[in-house]
């Protein structure tokens, strides 16, 4: 229930510059995800918002107030930890009510609020259990309720779902989003899981090497990545090197390093330009017609049946590889032997193209 600004945030660990001058503005009630590979500085940012790390430079501003140096206990922020961090010697109820007890609320009011939260996170009947008696999913629900109990200015989530199995992750991320929206709380969410980020966020800050490389809505991040790093990180895809051999009416012929040639509509016409192509696994289909355009050919080197599609990998002429998820003509593919010649067709204009300076040119 507050907006949060990070201004030129820098964090050093001895010689390691973990966060490099990050500026970020988070609106009231917004769910913002810091997404990036491990070591990119996302958790450091979260911990400096919580007050566990004092940044070496820069400011954390909450509702126009500089809180950079404020101790964690005075920030009124709820946090969900990666390993739950539930106190094993307290019951579910005591865990959830702890922050309220610290705030010296009358015990009757604490009881009411706790029971309401217990209901919200569907833990009725478990109030008097200890964390050790709960499943992982239930423990994470307790952690969520505990963080929300203090009616936090900001809810901080540090990879809260990474210890859960896939089904629970999907279930709980929806639940966290629903509950957060219901309470109208501002959320800063840290994850390295791009699907989780896409599903839960209002906006995503993709991070790499201590910088925010792109900030945008999930749709923008997915369909309009501003660098080949973001493109690679979000979605399942292949990175191929190529060269624009000639263009006509902004349609470029790109020769891949394997020798295959694909056509792609670009912003303008280029000649003799080295480019990087990102092609999503879903944007390739099987082709048996040598006259098709946008063909990429090689030898089938791997196939795995995934239920509604078949994941395959193809060795290209120059030793590079390309992966695809194929959902058409499965019978033909299933019977195909490894090592057989095979061609994939890139769906027109679906590639993301970046020039040598990593500028998106389509």
């Amino acid at each position, binding site marked *: 229930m507050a907006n949060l600004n990070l201004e030129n945030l820098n964090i050093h660990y001895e010689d390691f510059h973990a966060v490099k001058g990050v500026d970020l503005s988070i609106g009231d009630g917004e769910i913002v995800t810091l997404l990036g590979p491990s070591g990119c500085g996302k958790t450091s940012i979260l911990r400096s918002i919580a007050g566990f790390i004092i940044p070496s430079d820069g400011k954390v501003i909450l509702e126009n107030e500089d809180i950079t140096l404020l101790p964690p206990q*005075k920030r*009124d922020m*709820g*946090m969900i930890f990666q390993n739950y961090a539930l106190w*094993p010697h307290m019951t579910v109820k005591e865990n959830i009510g*702890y922050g309220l007890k*610290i705030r010296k609320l009358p015990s009757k009011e604490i009881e009411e609020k706790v029971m309401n939260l217990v209901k919200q996170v569907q833990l009725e009947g478990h109030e008097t259990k200890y964390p050790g008696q709960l499943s992982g999913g239930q*423990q994470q629900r307790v952690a969520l309720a*505990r963080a929300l109990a*203090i009616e936090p200015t900001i809810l901080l989530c540090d990879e809260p779902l990474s210890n859960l199995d896939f089904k629970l992750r999907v279930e709980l991320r929806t639940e966290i989003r629903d509950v957060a929206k219901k309470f109208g709380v501002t959320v800063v969410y840290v994850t390295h899981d791009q699907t989780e980020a896409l599903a839960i966020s209002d906006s995503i800050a993709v991070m790499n090497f201590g910088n925010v490389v792109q900030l945008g809505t999930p749709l923008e991040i997915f369909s309009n990545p501003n660098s080949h790093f973001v493109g690679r990180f979000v979605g399942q895809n292949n990175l191929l090197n190529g060269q624009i051999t000639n263009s006509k009416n902004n349609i470029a012929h790109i020769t891949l390093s394997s020798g295959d040639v694909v056509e792609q509509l670009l912003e303008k016409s280029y000649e003799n330009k080295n480019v990087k192509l990102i092609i999503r696994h879903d944007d390739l289909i099987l082709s048996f017609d040598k006259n098709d355009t946008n063909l990429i050919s090689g030898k089938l080197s791997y196939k795995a049946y995934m239920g509604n599609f078949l994941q395959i990998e193809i060795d290209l002429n120059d030793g590079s590889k390309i992966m695809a998820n194929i959902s058409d003509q499965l019978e033909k593919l299933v019977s195909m032997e490894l090592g057989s010649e095979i061609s994939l067709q890139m769906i027109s204009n679906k590639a993301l193209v970046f020039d040598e300076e990593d500028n998106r040119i389509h």
Partner: protein
Amino acid sequence: MESNSPDLLETKSSNLREKLISIRREMRDDPISWSIIIFITAFFGLFMIVPLLQVMFGAFFSNGNFPFSTYQEIFQRQYFFDPSRNADTYFIRIDSSDPNFTAYLLKGPDYGVFLNTIFMGVASTILSLVIGIFTAFLMARVELPGKTLLGGFLLIPLVLPPFVSGIGYMALLGYNGLVNTEILEPLFGIRIVLQGMFAIVFVQSAHYFTLIYLNVYSSLMNADPSLEEAAENMGATRFQVVKNVTLPLALPGIASGSILVLILSMEDLGTPAIFAGFGDLTARKTITYYILSTVRQSLSETGRLPAELSILSAFLLILSIIGFFMIRRYTEKRQYSMISKGRAGTFRTANPNILYLIAIYSYFIILLTLSLIPHIGIFIASLTEPGILPLKWSTSNYQELFDLENGFGSYIKNTMIFSLISTGVIVILATMAGYVANRKQFTGRSAFDTMITIPLAIPGVVLGIGFILLFGGTDAIPFGNIQLTFNPLIYAPIILIISYTIRKFPFTVRAVYAGLQQTDAVLEEAAHNLGASKGRTIYNVIIPLIVLNIVAGALIALVYNMSEVSTTLILVNTQTHGTVTWAMADANGKIGALAAMGMFLMFLQALSLFITNVLLKNRAEAITGI
């Protein structure tokens, strides 16, 4: 209701029958493990359970009846119970009889043997708790320059058994100790002397606080850092975090550590014996010392043990066994501080300002000075000629030490022989016992586990009494038909080695057990799967993997064997079989040579603990045994 009871009986007997059937099946399936179990159970049965039952029996039966009159006598004797302190000469006395100085004599209370023992235990425990917890917090949660060095210094008290400290204490802080004669008297014209219960509590706490410190420190370091962060995040102040999260999580460690200190200090015979040897009359009034002096007197006078000894021993024994089971409960609980998945980050330590730093270091300097006084005292005393001031340095004490023919050399020889043989037996038996207890599922496993670890809590004095009762042919009632004439006064070495083996067994078992726990059973299965026999698997896979633990466990057993006091004092009656500790506790003035022997023990202990530490890397559990 009545009709239910036959059913109940039947279920009980059928339970027993089922157990017997399953044991028979297990024996057929795994004869090797069961031979080990049976052999070790027989060993402990004969040399631990039967002697202890004999003690208990003597406490509750005399000629087939409950010995009311003996109890009455004990409770009525002022020497045992003196709550109104009639025998007490003084608590604190200021003595100005010497014109050169005023002596402040702090003797503490004297409530009679029983209450003194309880006072001694409780006071040492409280003092150790306060110092141990406070020190552990500073070490675990405050950023201190030179922390590694401090940590090393804090382990030094462990390298000297508390009773050896008594000698160093007398040399420095006694009435004629160097601190009094060289510092306090010339500078302030005073002497300050701790005596009686105060002196014993001081010496014990200076040693035992390390046990609490190690336990609490490891609890604090093993807890999940995010548990404290979560509390800070909820708005808890530093103090509230400690009170609501840190302390409750460390509580099992604190509880088990303090029970251990309570048991060890109440059954400590060496410290009272040292002070009593120097002429302190109040130091004689503890249960352990009373038992020792009575055993010596009555065996030489009448050849029989008076019935009251069984009662006093049974009292100590019951207390220790209750304590042991409480420790067990708490150590099982200790694991709950680690239920959360994985650990996040490290603890944020407080960064104190310069004033706090000065305060903290002053604390450490005072603590270390006090706890190292015995070591310094022993070192000085070992290199000087006794009773001569100013100090005259000399190595004559050490020369006497290595004179194997007469006196002190023979004590060292005995100590080494007894300790080494016992350690050898322990290593073989404890490795086998640790293996079956860790790897095999068998009926009665938890009872077996209890049996091989409970000696940790059994007072050495009591085991010694048990041996005398069982083998000594006294007028105590024999247990069943087992009454061997195996006079401990004649066969002391054999009995001693057996008692060492029983008493120090748990330390090696612990070490082996810890090693096996880190070694996945899958590794054995992999060898079986490739066709290796059971014996071969043990030889090729298990032993190489846990050999370090076995070595470390053996070293701990060796060190503790060498410094064993209680059983040795009770069982050894002639100089021929005397060990180093026996000679030390019989101190009659020869402080220099005793100190030299103390240095020798200290050196061996330090060396062994250092090696153990390097090998096991898990100080608290290995050294304290819990």
